[in-house]
């Protein structure tokens, strides 16, 4: 429930508190979701967008409870379908800032099709995929991102499904903005939210998120002090792919479609480019950690393509420019006759 005083935003001094709803947050203590919520509540007031223009749409899952905690418009829909609902919202009013909150099960298992179709259409929605490699809400089954052999409630002797890699899939669906962050990296997450907020077309952000209850530590390698330094590579457009602690910097070469770890100052180090039209570079980049490298955090790909809702609205506007619809004219179109 919102407060009854209208806030018109627009640099009108919105604060973090303005984005906190009156509902008690009900995630498990220590869940990575808290950090994501907090960061969102911090970033939104800085965007100079009136609060009433924000819509959060979600499916079902722990992550999907997110909209209840944001004092914006929110729609907690059904499992897997959030991108489709969000498409209806965005197309109905392209002026809104529409965010989709989804989990790895919600977005990639039951919802995989809507996800890829919203991305290929380039619907201007901002999708945050909370990837904890498990089904949290239903208490611990494996998900499409769980590793082969995962022992979970539904796979007590190990799963036999190869996982999906969300960013690779997104690139296969030609998503125009593809990025990754972690639930522990507050500043980086904030930067990603801001970039998404400003991207036209679909943006997909994978957040490596810790489910402390059912899959604790899934991402520790990339989030914990003492490990993340070696295992994380921050991406900067136009900058070389380098990572590692100051005293042991390494570089990544992606020459000839292979992942190679090289010295940080090697001439073979690949320079990052976000505007990878053909997508092959971003594809291999999305797999660096699978080939023994670090996990890339940041924007993997960002290309410009007119968003779906714009094309849709333009088409209607063009048709209307040729003459707004008139019911009588419509009914009287075609062959008519007078009967006496």
């Amino acid at each position: 429930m919102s407060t009854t005083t209208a806030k018109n935003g627009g640099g009108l001094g919105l604060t973090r508190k303005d984005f906190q709803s009156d509902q008690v947050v009900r995630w498990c203590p220590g869940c990575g979701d808290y950090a994501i919520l907090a960061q969102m509540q911090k970033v939104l007031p800085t965007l100079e967008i009136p609060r009433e223009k924000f819509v959060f749409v979600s499916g079902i899952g722990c992550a999907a409870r997110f909209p209840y905690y944001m004092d914006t418009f929110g729609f907690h829909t059904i499992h897997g379908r959030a991108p489709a609902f969000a498409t209806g919202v965005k197309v109905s009013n392209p002026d809104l800032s529409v965010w989709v909150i989804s989990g790895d099960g919600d977005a990639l298992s039951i919802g995989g099709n809507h996800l890829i179709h919203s991305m290929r259409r380039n619907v201007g929605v901002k999708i945050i995929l909370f990837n904890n490699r498990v089904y949290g809400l239903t208490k611990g089954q494996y998900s499409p991102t769980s590793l082969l052999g995962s022992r979970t409630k539904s796979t007590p002797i190990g799963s036999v499904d190869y996982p999906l890699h969300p960013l690779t899939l997104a690139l296969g669906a030609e998503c125009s903005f593809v990025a990754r962050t972690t639930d522990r990296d507050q500043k980086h997450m904030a930067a990603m939210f801001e970039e998404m907020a400003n991207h036209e077309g679909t943006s997909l952000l994978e957040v490596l998120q810790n489910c402390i209850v059912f899959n604790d530590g899934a991402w520790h390698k990339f989030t914990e002090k003492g490990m993340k330094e070696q295992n994380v590579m921050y991406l900067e457009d136009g900058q070389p792919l380098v990572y590692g602690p100051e005293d042991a910097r390494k570089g990544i070469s992606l020459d000839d479609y292979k992942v190679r770890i090289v010295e940080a100052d090697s001439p073979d180090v690949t320079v990052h480019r976000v505007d990878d039209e053909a997508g092959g570079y971003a594809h291999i980049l999305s797999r660096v950690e699978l080939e023994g490298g670090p996990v890339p955090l940041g924007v993997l790909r960002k290309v410009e393509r007119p968003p779906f809702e714009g094309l849709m609205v333009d088409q209607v506007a063009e048709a209307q420019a040729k003459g707004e619809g008139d019911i009588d004219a419509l009914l009287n179109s075609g062959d008519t006759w007078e009967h006496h």
Partner: protein
Amino acid sequence: MAESSGKNGAEKQLVELETVAIRFAGDSGDGMQLTGDRFTNAAAVAGNDLSTFPDFPAEIRAPVGTLAGVSGFQINFSSRDIHTPGDAVDVLVAMNPAALKTSIGDLKSGGIIIANVDNFGQKNLAKAGYESNPLEDEEFKSNYDVHEVKITSMTRQALEDMELQSNLADRCKNFFALGLMYWMYSRPLEPTREWIEEKFGKRPEFVQANTRALEAGYFFGENTEVFTSNYIVREATYPAGKYRNISGNVALAYGFIAATKKMGINLFWGAYPITPASDVLHELSRHKNFGVQTFQAEDEIAAVSAALGASFTGSLGVTCSSGPGIALKAEAMGLGVMTELPMVIANIQRGGPSTGLPTKTEQADLLQVMFGRNSESPLPVVAAATPGDCFWTAIEASRLAVKYMTPVVILSDGYLANGSEPWLLPKAADIPEMPVTFRTEPEGFLPYLRDPETMARPWAIPGTPGLEHRIGGIEKEDRTGNVNYEPENHEFMVRTRDAKIAGIAKDIPPAKVIGEASGKVLVIGWGGTFGAITAAIEALQARGASVSQVHLRHLNPFPANLEEVLGNFEKILVPELNLGQLSKMLRYQYLVDTISFNKIQGKPFKVGELITKIEELL
């Protein structure tokens, strides 16, 4: 009554008839639908009442000459009020043996056959499963008035000097058949000539070829001695006004356009193609100038979801499909019920179960739309009675959706969707205004605070300052709409949702009895069987039988007076193209011992079938 006619040729009889049913039947590629359409138009413009029934195969183009490939178009036209495409046809135009075979059972004894003998060769006969040529069978010939016409060769002849490829020439043969029928039923050629001009304008050789074929057919009738008489069906005496011929799917599209225009909001159409619903999407996608957004989604689930998202955002979200696609929408429809958002779900029913008979009609999804969702999930259901009525049904569904903040189901069917009838054009001004008021006032706003009269919650759309709120599919707290798992609140909300829908009974017209208000038999129907039932009832009432009719537009809730009406008759007959679904609903609701009369053949009722059944009960 007969007068004599004939200009250049033999003196011929002009016989006046009241009602004529013609069936054009041929291969899918033979253009029978187009031919039927044109004839329909001519009959309409001549002021006849009429009813049509297109019937096409499931395959795009089944192998030429096979039974599976037959495409038919039946038109019934009359100088009196009629309601159906006719139980049996007076004239059968059969472009090949397969067409003859599939349609002969519907030809009246003594009826006219125009057979394109050019196609009655051994091969085609075999494909149709004929061992010998029926046209040469003496018994057959004595049963019908058989005319063997060389339609193909005469068409080719007529176009001979045009140097067309022969297959192009052959594609004009339907116009020859049409021309012949125009002569036979005294219709002018002019409107069709104009139509050809308009349609093929960019390809002058097509214009010429088709026009020549049309004329050739006409003159063939006029000049040869094969036909000794032709006929006239005079204007019918239906209400004066401006008319057009309209199919159910087009009327449905127009209805939604009109409704949203009257509401002053945009129409968002989320759909995934499926026979026989796709044409509504096609039609709407041509009218974006009304602010209509058509979204061909990746599947039915996305279609309904996007529609509900659009409704949340202040458009009228509508989704349209047929049975199997409706099944996929169930979960999101349930969310619509829980979030109490306006939305319309149109189900153009077809034969089932499963993929079933995709191009055939049926009305067997009533219980699906009533109950095909988890838990208690009530919503209003309305059904269209005739093609033109689809327009008004769309408006009524939209009205209920917005006024009561609820998803509403419309039931149409393949027969209404593709069939057509002359339709008295309403004026925009005659359509009631239905202005929408979105909530804008933050003071006192609660997402689930209800209007005391309608029990509707406010429509508060994103972008409205101060109304930020969250909704979703988990049980909601009364008034605030917050997530709530408390036992008493749940029971309260379940009963409230139920009461809201039940309460709509106060806002809909009472069931209208056609005929005496009490008596021996009441025939109660719904949906596309209206025409056939009405025709049967009229015939029986004309004979003085104690039979009355109720046709339901509102299937949930039922009209408030329905129980009383039912109580006034000794027997209640419920004819349905299913195994008795409305019948079940009447039984559990009113404990009335309905008599079900069912047909599940992918085809509408015949008037005669109904008359026979009703007579049994009288």
